[in-house]
């Protein structure tokens, strides 16, 4: 039979629950105090770090991974690597560019060109270069 519930003291579920609620409140406080943070990116880093801590608590204690044997690594490592692969594959061409993106519907971009550029069917990127 499994070693997951019989051979260890049960995890401090109540404490983990309080911790998770505390982390959630911390995320909301970070959102409310966003102006006090140096940038929007800083807020993203803070709230995502909090999310990682919350996820870790859920996985380790609620999902009992802390008390499972090494099979958890064999099972979860490949899926995690494959899961990260897709965003990484999309990142160079969709998420990060060395070139300007032509977004004709964006008024910020549209104002950068005169009327003839806007009506010429794109080419804002070329115009910028």
């Amino acid at each position: 039979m499994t070693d997951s519930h019989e051979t260890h003291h049960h995890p401090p579920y109540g404490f983990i629950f309080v911790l998770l609620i505390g982390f959630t409140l911390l995320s909301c406080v970070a959102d409310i105090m966003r102006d006090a943070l140096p940038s929007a990116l800083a807020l993203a880093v803070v709230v995502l770090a909090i999310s990682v801590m919350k996820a870790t608590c859920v996985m380790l204690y609620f999902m009992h991974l802390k008390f499972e044997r090494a099979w958890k690594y064999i099972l979860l490592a490949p899926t995690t690597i494959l899961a990260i692969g897709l965003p990484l594959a999309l990142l160079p061409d969709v998420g990060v560019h060395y070139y300007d993106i032509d977004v004709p519907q964006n008024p910020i971009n549209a104002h950068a060109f005169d009327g003839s550029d806007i009506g010429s069917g794109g080419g804002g990127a070329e115009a910028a270069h």
Partner: protein
Amino acid sequence: MGLAIPNSKLCMWLFLGTEIMFFTAFIGSYLVLRMGSPGWPSDPADTHIVLWAGGLNTFVLILSSYFVVVAHEAMTESNYRKAWTFLARTLALSVVFLGIKGYEYWGKFDHDILPGHVAESEDQAASKLEHELIVARESFLNDLVPLHDVSVKQREGWVGNLDSFSAAIAAEGDDSQKETMQSIFDALKSRTDDLAAFQTFSTAVTTYRDSLRKGEVELYAHAAESVEGEHGEAGHHNYGEKVQTVLDAARTESVAGFSGGVHDPHPMVYGNVFASCYFIMTGFHAIHVLVGMILFSIVLLQGSRLDGRWVDFVENSGLYWHFVDLVWIFLFPLIYIVQF
């Protein structure tokens, strides 16, 4: 040989492995699209994202996850009554979660923040307004002359000139149709205020449409302010004269009952891909919540028959439910908080 865990638990973990890839595909694509889209809509005034609803739903899911572990613990201690009670509480919380999610979705539908529906430029917003106005006018016309087999143009002519309607009734060969038309005609004669309101509204819509065709419509009174200043004051838009005139016509008391689908025009760059991402991520998450509810319902239906044979089922259902919680833990900050 084999792993020291039940087969069912191994299967659940293998399934959760696929689920990790499934949701990472959505969340990862969302992140990449967002990074590559300068001007992504993140202001709650644009997106109608409700922080308190997301925060409350986070609390609800975490509490339900806690109830599940308590229920599983009770199962291992053979306290089946306690396990049943806590699973019932979990099920109730999942209903609350979907209720709050439904409230949020209602907001999105109400403001027409749906994939393919969002105007991304001022021209698109002006055209969308035209479409919504024409739909509202037709809705009003359907109320006045509910003859759907007669063309809109013909009915508009009748409403504008009741004598032509009377002549059409006289020329109608089908007795049943003639009787229907006559009853509508009689009712119309007593709705003079509505007829006048329709004429005023219809004229306003036609004027707006013609102005749009001629390129004379400016969405905002001061184009330079529209990029940044349109949300300067909550709910206030400094629309151009032609847009404001037709909106005022649509908001009059007589027309309001038919112009619910006429929204204040509001261009939102990347609004459609935002809506797609929002609905696909939260929608699939909600489907997972529904599946969890089914799993818990199966256990709850056992009632007093719940016994030790259900320990593994409850544990595996719990693992699934914690994963649903885990996904929301990342969706909450990414959708509700992060703005860049």
